[in-house]
């Protein structure tokens, strides 16, 4: 195994592009190192991107959004008051990953690139309309988060491509988001179902919404029908019922050791409804 510490993303991409065996990028390492120690994967090239300038920064963008470095840990995100005020749903999703110890290392991009449909931070990012910067041998491009995962453990990234930053849009006024997951326990578990809702309220009515669901399909999915069910409403019972039905209809889950397909399909509607109520209350300033 060769261990690399590039000083720039261009350099990291160049190393990855030249590598011909198994390549892994190392940030927090909470997936890569565990898989390595469990004998699941032994990389030929391990590219540590924590030595690149800016990877630990959280910064405002010119338009009022946020640019988050790829090595920023869940714990650092959770302590950033302004970011949490803007995107509580994104951060609460990330903060559900693992234990306190894991939170000290784990990153948004690592959670995304692990490719799990149950990743807790991904539904919130997708609902928020977050993008990531993908740097490769041919330069950088901006990609919507929902376009990154392509299946369990798989991403759209080509050989030599690495994610170099996460960007959250400007929150603006009247916005609120929320993420809920179902686990049988209270922590230290993997989402059996996850649901994130991001919306904007103007004059008591929802003017914009995005709904993303986790662990009910091969990837986290963005469900425009679920968003449409609540846009233009004041989130009354009929809107909630329509949201529930749309979430259930979009879910195409499997049965596995963590839960049955029927259970996931039913509970995803429940969580979408509950998450929408929290996001709605946050948008109106009635909840944090």
């Amino acid at each position, binding site marked *: 195994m060769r261990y690399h510490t590039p000083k720039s993303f261009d350099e990291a991409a160049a190393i990855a592009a030249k590598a011909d065996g198994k390549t892994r990028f190392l940030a927090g390492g909470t997936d890569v190192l565990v898989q390595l120690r469990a004998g699941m994967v032994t990389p030929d090239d391990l590219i540590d991107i924590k030595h690149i300038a800016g990877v630990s920064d959280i910064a405002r963008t010119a338009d009022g959004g946020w640019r988050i470095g790829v090595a920023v840990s869940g714990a650092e995100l959770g302590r950033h008051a302004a970011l949490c005020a803007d995107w509580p749903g994104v951060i609460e999703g990330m903060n559900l990953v693992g234990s306190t110890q894991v939170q000290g290392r784990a990153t948004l991009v690592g959670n995304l690139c692990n490719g799990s449909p149950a990743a807790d931070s991904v539904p919130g990012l997708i609902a928020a309309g977050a993008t990531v910067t993908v740097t490769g041998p041919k330069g950088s491009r901006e990609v919507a988060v929902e376009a990154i995962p392509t299946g369990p453990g798989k991403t759209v990234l080509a050989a030599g491509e690495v994610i170099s930053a996460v960007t959250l849009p400007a929150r603006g006024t009247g916005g609120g988001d929320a993420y809920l997951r179902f686990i*049988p*326990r*209270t922590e*230290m*578990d993997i989402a059996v179902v996850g649901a994130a809702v991001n919306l904007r309220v103007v004059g008591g009515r929802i003017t914009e919404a995005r709904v993303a669901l986790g662990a009910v399909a091969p990837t986290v999915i963005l469900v425009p029908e679920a968003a449409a069910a609540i846009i233009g409403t004041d989130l009354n019972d009929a809107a909630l019922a329509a949201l529930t039905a749309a979430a259930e209809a979009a879910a195409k889950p499997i049965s596995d050791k963590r839960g*049955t397909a029927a259970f996931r399909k*039913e509970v995803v509607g429940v969580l979408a409804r509950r998450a929408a109520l929290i996001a709605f209350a946050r948008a109106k300033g009635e909840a944090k």
Partner: protein
Amino acid sequence: MAKDELKTGYRLIGTRPDRPDGLDKVTGRARYGADITAPGMLHAAVVRSPHAHARIIKIDASKALALPGVKAVITRADFPTGLTGEDWNLQENTMAGDVALYDGHAVAAVAATTKLLAQDAALLIEVEYEILPHVTDVDAAMAPGAPAIRPGSADPSVPEGMHPNVIRYIDFGHGDLAAGFAAADLVREATYKTEATHQGYIEPHACLGQMGADGRGEMWVCTQGQWYIRRMSAAVLGIEAANLRVTPSEIGGGFGGKTTIFMEPLSLALSKKAGGRPVKLVMSRSEVFRATGPTASTSMDVKIGMKKDGTITAGQVYFRMQGGAFPGMSPISEALQCAFACYDVPALKHEAVEVLANRPKAAAYRAPGSPMAAFAVESMVDELCRELGLDPIATRLKNAARNGSKSSFGPSYNQIGLVESLEAARAHPNYAAPLGPNQGRGVASGFWMNHGGETSVSLAIGEDGTVGVMVGTPDVGGSRASLALMTAETLGIPYENVRVNIVETGALGVNEPTHGSRATFASGKAAVEAARQAIGEMCRRAAAEWGIDADAVEWKDGAAHPAGPNAGKFPPLTIAEIGASMGSTGGPISGHHESVPGGVGASFGAHVVDVEVDPETGRTTVLRYLVVQDAGRAIHPAYVEGQYQGGAVQGIGWALNEEYVYGTDGRLQNSIFLDYRVPVASDLPMIDTVIVEVPNPGHPYGVRGVGETGITPPLPAMASAIAAATGARLRSLPMSPPKVLAAIRAKGRG
């Protein structure tokens, strides 16, 4: 009430001093199994079958042996042949012979200079398998057409016509069953199922073994019983017991699962083949789940008759239990003995069969068999109480086993505390706490018979009057503290002046493991007897010093005193003074006691739990939980409470989410703690405890075992609480959210 019968005025018994192992454990100084090292040590890795059932065609280790640093590879061919009975079963489980019998069954092992190298070498050992049909479910394993796992291994007790996987049958009972059911106002029957669960001890199995060409060996190992390790390893390897010295490490939990061998002989066999270099073998968590002993899975029929006033008129059970691909480990006998142990019923019939399946060899798990039996019987009692509108505690009191009543399994009870426990539960504020929407309360009682067992304890007085106690029962739940308290109480000296050491097999007579809730009872009783023997000798030394008869000396407050005015006027001789002069007064002073102690006192308990169930997700939250149990006498109450809480928590986990999940390929799907869902701390409220003390007349301080009964009531108590909260009765464990939600939906449709 029992309190009045207690001897009062103990100086130390019933106090809560600091635990003697506390500082070592919080500072990391305590040495667990994997902490032991030796010069020249090698590391081992085990090659395990990925198949549930497969014939081993060929094992080729040539590539592994070609790696520099690989020192030995062993297969079954390196073990002696001709073993029979349980010795053969142990050997077969340690290393597969012709056939791998479960996913995770060891087929080869390798020793190398580093752990990584050993793991790499294990991957290079090529095993060719012929996959055979498998079965993992207990009912499926005894159905027509199921693959016969070990044909011809059935016991003569098995009735004709049963599947060859049924290998043992037992039955017993009393009274006129037909008349009993005829006398009932309500008779109900149902089938209950429980999944296999693992003890889930935090410390994986670990050992360091060394054996030379002369057949002499040493082993350092995490175990509940060093003599069991010695006897079983010696049998599997064909060596003499006295040639293997086994030293137990500090232990990070066992719960019955560390009372037998799994991989220990592998380290010794590897060591011998590697020229006598010591070999360390540490299991991963996945290996612990796949290849050590979980408890049995069960399918149980129960039929009970009850009168409108709550009187139970008759009961009948038929239990089917699988404990893996090996006979003897399904606790059918214990399950039947515990099934109706809390009740005095005029007519009972018990039947059970033991069934083989392609799963790992089960091991003991905290009150083996009793939690499953309680799930079936106590759930059904609750169902009858609800249907008849009866209070569950009043009904249990009405039918309770009492002092002198004949037990459901034969012998009459002596002094027992079931009634006192039920009454304490009924009087506790938790039983009257108001319940909100989607909340429900469940009640169950529980029983474990407890155990005496082979016991040998020695004690030596030091030159300064402090005392060392040598015991053979590893301390899994605070026995060093309780033994020090009892020894100090008996000798009349401070707790801090007694140090209890868990010793190796060469230091004492044979001891059974710390199992059957026996350590504080049996080793405690022996320690008290050993202390009394030392007191006798110290009184003789004082008598010789004073020139009076030994009969005229009495021992109190840690010193010899003249027994009365007629004995003469002498200042007391303290234990420190006697210790200081012992070299010139006759030599070392010690005490020793060995026996299979009688007077074992059974422990009964009653649990009350309140839960809230989310009607939209089926998720259960435990709101409050009460454990009431008869300790006989709580020597160190904090440890007793810890046992009660630990038993309840393991039972809650078993009830809610823990299970062995097998795929259709017969492979275990959830062999890590991420997916084998034990409760985490934030899942639980503080478990409330009430210690009932009905002293056991068979122990000098009234001790009963307390370790096991606590895991028995949670399974049915949780099921009854969920039934009360949702109206849906779950008869299959675990009561995971998908199953609870499905049951709620089925009720709505019904």
